[in-house]
């Protein structure tokens, strides 16, 4: 069975909610839409206080080419366009809507009937990309990179195949798995649409071996689609990283930045994105709801929800039996790459695939000890870096040296910190160094342009 070559770790799975069927989350009383839910320029609000909006109505337009519009997930009145706390922990410009009823925009096709590509043969690549762009579809794996940008490769690089990410290597999270189990046909049509948009004639769906039912189901349904292959992968974290996935599925290495997967001919998209593309193109349904796992060892009923964006996390946690007693750590995402939050009122955004609650001793880090030079961090780094060196150099502010050591290649997967027997804050230091070096590179490029 295939997997990526360099490094990797095997954290315990804890897929507590894997066999819990998805239910629609209750409508919130008030929905909050941060204007910056994607990578790139923040969206610009096009509604004002007092406006009535319907479900699926655009409330903020894209702020540039690398940006995405935002759609209301509820019907109701705009309370204010103000700042609200988001996943970054800071107050960011947001649109706040008071929910009244559930009136959908009439252009959305709400039927469950499967629309096949064969009945829409006239669709062109440009039409698909513009539908994706106009429906605000972004990468649903967590990074939220606008999908229409990914489907328009930079000049000089040519896509050869699409790789669909159904790996879900993060512990605890099961939202992609539930989506594959419940909407396999829609995902396959979405993959066809992605292939047509990217003008390629081959697609692979990578799924880890710990999801045998999903592999079986998708392999069987994909029999009708000769150009789509389901690739079972050996379980290893961080296989869901796009560079690791390209290496695992087709064996090619993506070079160091600024190279991206399309430099070696691959366009990587999440299964959630494929589903969102299907809904955008075939059902004219903009991106305003998504699959979210709410989980944690102490959560009474870990579950999967179809959530309207803008719903506060506190409401989902309450629906699962409430916040456990004692000290808890709330994460947007999984325990490896998730972001720790300081408030339960943070809304679900386009990239929130999971709400994870770590309780008791899991909530705290262990006291760091001196480095014992065991080099475990070096052996697990999936990018072939030397984490102990990068962390030390970053803490000494040796920015030129860390740049030479390829700090910008780091994908911040956290494998080094997971495996460190001395519990050193390796990734904290590396992240600090990486952001400083990225800033230096940007400043240098701007200077050269002038």
């Amino acid at each position: 069975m295939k997997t990526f070559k360099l490094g990797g770790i095997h954290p315990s799975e804890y897929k507590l909610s894997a066999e819990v069927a998805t239910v629609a989350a209750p409508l919130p009383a008030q929905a909050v839409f941060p204007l910056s839910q994607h990578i790139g320029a923040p969206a610009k609000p096009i509604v004002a206080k007092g406006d009535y909006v319907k479900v699926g109505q655009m409330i903020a337009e894209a702020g540039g080419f690398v940006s995405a519009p935002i759609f209301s997930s509820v019907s109701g009145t705009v309370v204010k366009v103000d700042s609200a706390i988001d996943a970054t922990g800071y107050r960011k410009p947001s649109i706040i809507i008071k929910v009244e009823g559930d009136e959908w925009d009439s252009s959305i096709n709400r039927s469950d009937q499967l629309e096949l590509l064969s009945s829409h043969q006239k669709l062109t690549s440009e039409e698909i990309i513009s539908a994706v762009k106009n429906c605000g579809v972004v990468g649903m794996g967590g990074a939220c990179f606008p999908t229409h940008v990914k489907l328009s490769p930079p000049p000089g690089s040519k896509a050869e195949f699409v790789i669909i990410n159904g790996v879900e290597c993060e512990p605890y999270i099961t939202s992609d798995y539930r989506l594959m189990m419940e909407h396999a046909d829609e995902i396959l049509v979405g993959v066809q649409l992605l292939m047509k948009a990217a003008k390629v004639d081959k697609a692979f769906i990578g799924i880890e071996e710990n999801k045998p039912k999903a592999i079986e189901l998708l392999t069987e349904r994909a029999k009708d689609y000769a150009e789509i292959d389901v690739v079972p992968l050996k379980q290893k974290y961080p296989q869901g990283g796009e560079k690791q996935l390209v290496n695992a599925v087709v064996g090619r290495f993506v070079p160091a930045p600024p190279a991206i997967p399309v430099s070696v001919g691959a366009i990587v998209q999440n299964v959630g994105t494929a589903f969102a593309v299907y809904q955008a193109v075939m059902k004219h349904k903009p991106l305003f709801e998504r699959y979210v796992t709410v989980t944690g060892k102490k959560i009474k009923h870990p579950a999967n929800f179809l959530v309207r964006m803008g719903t506060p996390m506190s409401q989902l946690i309450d629906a699962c039996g409430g916040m456990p007693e004692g000290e808890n750590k709330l994460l947007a995402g999984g325990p490896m790459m998730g972001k720790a939050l300081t408030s339960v009122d943070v809304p679900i955004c386009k990239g929130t695939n999971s709400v994870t609650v770590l309780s008791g001793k899991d909530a705290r880090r262990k006291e760091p000890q001196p480095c014992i030079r065991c080099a475990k961090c070096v052996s697990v780094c999936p990018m072939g870096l030397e984490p102990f060196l990068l962390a030390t150099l970053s803490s000494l502010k040796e920015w030129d040296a860390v740049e030479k050591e390829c700090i910008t290649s780091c994908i911040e997967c956290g494998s080094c910190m997971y495996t460190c027997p001395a519990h050193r804050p390796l990734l904290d230091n590396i992240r600090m160094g990486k952001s400083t070096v990225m800033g230096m590179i940007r400043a240098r490029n701007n200077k050269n342009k002038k």
Partner: protein
Amino acid sequence: MNFVIIAVIVLGAIGLVSAVVLFVTSQKFAVREDPRIKDVAEVLPQANCGGCGFAGCSGFADACVKSADKGSLDGMLCPVGGQKVMNEVASILGMSSSDSVAKIAVVRCNGTCENRPRTAIYDGLKKCSAINACGAGETACGYGCLGCGDCVDACMFNAIHINPSTMIPEVDEDKCVACGACSKACPRHIIEIRLKGEEKRICVDCVNQDKGPVAMKACSVSCIACGKCKKVCEYDAVSIDGNVAYIDASKCTQCGKCVEACPRHAIDSVSLSSKCLNEEVNKL
């Protein structure tokens, strides 16, 4: 015997040729440095702190000489040496030095453990820049001091320390040379290099740009931009920008009316003369 003579002659010849080559190159490629640069550098403190804005003391000396050639020393100030050193520099360069005003680093946050309740626990890397990158920190204020001492690490004069009871840095008035290193190191730009003042110094000790109700919840001494200080000021020294008040030190007359008017006790008046008096009393 022959070998010795040959060796002496060969080595002597090589030495002679090399000496000639070295002499010629040293004459031809000699770098002639203005002797005044060395003289100026000698009177500078040699702390190489960069507080003047140039790369170390020799860079500053070079800039002083160039500036003097243009006719004035305006704008050139060594924050460490202060007026005394600048007078010496001016006398070396045969100029009259321009008067400078003393400045000092001011920490514009009073979010102590008592004033600003903790809403979360952070247990990652204990560095302000690391906390700032990953969220608002342990309190609900996304603008205030993070208390991990990036400013303390940056200070080369041992002039700033975290007070362990408040977890807010305090500046030592006597040691601070206003080089600005702490101000640059602070990821939240809380530390301002301000006019030192003679008797009193009045400053808004808050940089929270959130709107009133939000700022009010986060901290008991936050500025809520109510504008009372602006109304009461007779000298147009107070401006309100981005939901936070700011006092222009060059216009402020230290009348203290804004300090009394502030309903949040966010404006701090530091009485410098009383501090000096206390010190004198202690000496007695």
